[in-house]
């Protein structure tokens, strides 16, 4: 059957089971948008290509399936570079299709030409410039295989306009051999000796901690983690990328570690004699000053990517494996630490002494951002998905919302991309229409990508957005207050400009404002009754609120600063 390259591209996406593509057309990708009309694939027309990328990420993080975005050449392609970089840092499976100028024009500085495969070489798992229509099915099949296996990540396919327009004989690869990836071997067999050495370390440990990272979610190992943790009684911490991998309500869960982690999670790692790292990468936001990080601990490092071993921290035992298979192997060998009663009683003391706290909110306002999050959470349906931007509100959303299952926390971890929240929430809601999706956002982040609420309204994606409006770039303000002698440089945004309620209404959303406790509860109640259009609530919060606990950049995790209300004692 002879069809065009463009038809082959859409047909290949259908073969992969793609149900939705986030994108925006333009000159070079025009041929591909034509057969899309006749396809079963839903297309979400974004207002900016960055939105398409973050929506695809939100979709992937909420569903576990690869997100797909499609944009045109030149500026369309460069506008999606930030989401690609973000997905690369967070190992999120993404397939991005870009239009390219016609093959004969490549290299001539043609209109809307840019070398997007060159630009994204360092921030994709792999990318392809397709040279002929006949190659399109292979490129698509290989892209999905690469994006979703091993350590997941973004893959880009660049399709010149003439390739999309030319004819090909339809085929589709039926075996992995036909993908033509001779250098790609994502799965490795477990090494029995390595497992035995890991088990020996677990068996002699007295103060172990399960250091759970994003790879645990990526390998869908939550059930195996729960079983292993409950059988062994080992305490669990979940990093920012792993929130939801282990239930927050579980008695063995100490919370998030790191720069703004729970005191007990940070301290338990510091005092540990064995860190069992499961798909985590010893990020600087977790370790603080590296030589001072968990100095007395041995390390079992489980990761599918062997380049993570010994990159930051020496691994006493490096287990190259997906997390689920490694945990099953530990269980099969009955790995069991020594009696942990003494360890747990220490941990319980820290928990009692340093829980998460914030100052009592006053009835008249301004609102406490932490209290707003707890109030939303208290009235949220079970299984609600939370997306966030990047900054103070993100840390509070991680600290004060309780995540009980995978896919309920959607955020930008490694890259720290402001503006991630709104489009990611839209993508999550598209992927999980049965779930309530709240975007906990900051006023700075909201202004970066809010235009996608037009997309949400037009496409019928009723997300809810809580702007914690403190009129500042809050996290930067916090650092300037604490480390730059309160010299506030270019961080003030104004609470009233823009008018978020009018802006929301102009975008076809319901806009609400809350300045005191009564209005806060009313606004949340109203938002919860609206299920057909997006809702935006402008919560006026106290700009002096800071995120605690905090480990200063470059400081040892031993020097964690707790909330001022808890000081006066030892910390």
């Amino acid at each position, binding site marked *: 059957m002879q069809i065009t390259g463009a038809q082959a591209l859409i047909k290949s996406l259908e073969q992969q089971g793609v149900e939705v593509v986030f994108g925006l057309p333009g000159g070079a990708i025009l041929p591909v948008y034509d057969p899309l009309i006749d396809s079963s694939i839903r297309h979400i027309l974004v207002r900016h290509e960055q939105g398409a990328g973050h929506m695809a990420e939100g979709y992937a993080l909420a569903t576990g399936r690869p997100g797909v975005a499609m944009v045109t050449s030149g500026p369309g392609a460069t506008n999606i570079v930030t989401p690609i970089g973000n997905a690369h840092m967070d190992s999120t499976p993404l397939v991005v299709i870009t239009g390219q100028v016609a093959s004969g024009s490549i290299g001539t500085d043609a209109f809307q030409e840019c070398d997007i495969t060159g630009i994204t070489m360092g921030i994709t798992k792999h990318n392809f410039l397709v040279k002929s229509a006949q190659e399109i099915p292979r490129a698509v099949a290989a892209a999905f295989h690469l994006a979703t296996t091993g350590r997941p990540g973004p893959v880009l396919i660049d399709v010149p306009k003439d390739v999309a327009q030319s004819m090909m004989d339809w085929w589709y690869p039926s075996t992995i051999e036909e993908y033509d990836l001779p*250098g790609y071997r994502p799965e490795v067999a477990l090494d029995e000796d390595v497992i035995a050495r890991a088990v020996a370390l677990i068996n002699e440990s007295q103060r172990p901690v399960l250091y759970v990272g994003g790879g645990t979610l990526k390998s869908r190992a939550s059930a195996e983690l729960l079983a292993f943790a409950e059988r062994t009684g080992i305490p669990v911490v979940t990093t920012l990328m792993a929130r939801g991998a282990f239930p927050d309500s579980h008695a063995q869960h100490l919370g998030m570690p790191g720069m703004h982690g729970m005191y007990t999670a940070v301290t338990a790692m510091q005092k540990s004699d064995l860190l069992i790292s499961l798909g985590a990468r010893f990020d600087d936001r977790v370790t603080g000053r590296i030589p001072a990080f968990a100095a007395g601990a041995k390390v079992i490092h489980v990761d599918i990517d062997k*380049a993570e071993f010994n990159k930051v921290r020496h691994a006493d035992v490096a287990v190259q494996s997906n997390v689920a298979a490694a945990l099953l192997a530990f269980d099969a060998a009955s790995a069991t630490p020594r009696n942990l009663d003494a360890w747990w009683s220490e941990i319980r003391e820290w928990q009692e002494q340093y829980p998460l706290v914030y100052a009592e909110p006053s009835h008249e306002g301004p609102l406490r951002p932490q209290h707003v999050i707890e109030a939303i959470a208290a009235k949220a349906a079970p299984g609600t998905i939370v997306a966030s931007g990047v900054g103070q509100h993100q840390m509070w959303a991680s600290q004060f919302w309780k995540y009980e299952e995978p896919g309920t926390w959607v955020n930008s971890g490694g890259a720290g991309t402001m503006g991630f929240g709104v489009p990611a929430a839209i993508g999550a809601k598209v992927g999980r229409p049965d779930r309530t999706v709240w975007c906990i956002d900051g006023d700075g982040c909201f202004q970066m990508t809010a235009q996608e609420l037009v997309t949400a309204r037009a496409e019928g994606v009723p997300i809810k957005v809580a702007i914690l409006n403190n009129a500042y770039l809050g996290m930067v303000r916090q650092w300037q207050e604490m480390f730059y002698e309160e010299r506030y440089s270019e961080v003030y945004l104004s609470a009233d400009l823009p008018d978020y309620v009018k802006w929301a209404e102009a975008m076809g959303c319901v806009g609400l404002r809350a300045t005191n406790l009564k209005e806060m509860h009313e606004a949340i109640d109203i938002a919860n009754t609206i299920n057909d259009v997006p809702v935006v609530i402008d919560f006026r919060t106290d700009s002096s609120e800071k995120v605690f606990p905090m480990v200063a950049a470059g400081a040892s995790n031993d020097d964690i600063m707790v909330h001022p209300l808890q000081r006066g004692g030892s910390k």
Partner: protein
Amino acid sequence: MSATPEPFLGTIDHTPVRHHILSVLVENKAGVLARIAGLFARRGFNIYSLAVAPAESGARFSRVTIVVDAESAPLEQIVGQLDKLVNVVAITDISPKDALERELLLATIKTDVDNRTSLLDIIANAGAAIVDVDTKSVTVMLAATPGGCDELERALEAFAQVELHRTGRVALPRLGKTASA
């Protein structure tokens, strides 16, 4: 090809601890060299030299011989990151002590009646060959160990050089020695 501004000519430290040889089989596809060079640049790994040619299996694969600075980053990191490039098919790490290394040097030297004899002596002693001659200059070729090429390069410094090129080394494990894949 170097990830740092440092020129490699004449600056190679041949002591065995400092450098390592990676023999990398790659798919012969557009942009593969850029992927390797880009990886070394963004991860801060230093390349001393790099040689590329079609591999034994024909047009489908090429062999890239990379001499890396094993002190700019742990070898394990370099190999691990390199292995993640999808177009990289296999990596063989050859320790310098187990390697048979060869490099090609080409140099064009100005000659006159006064220096011709001593130049010919140097060429003969080095085991080099004259591959091109005109009235005012000769072009010398040497295929030798990197150390041998260094020696000839130093000896030629006494003469007026028009140009001197070196290929960077290629290597195979010595017979009876196994390389680690």
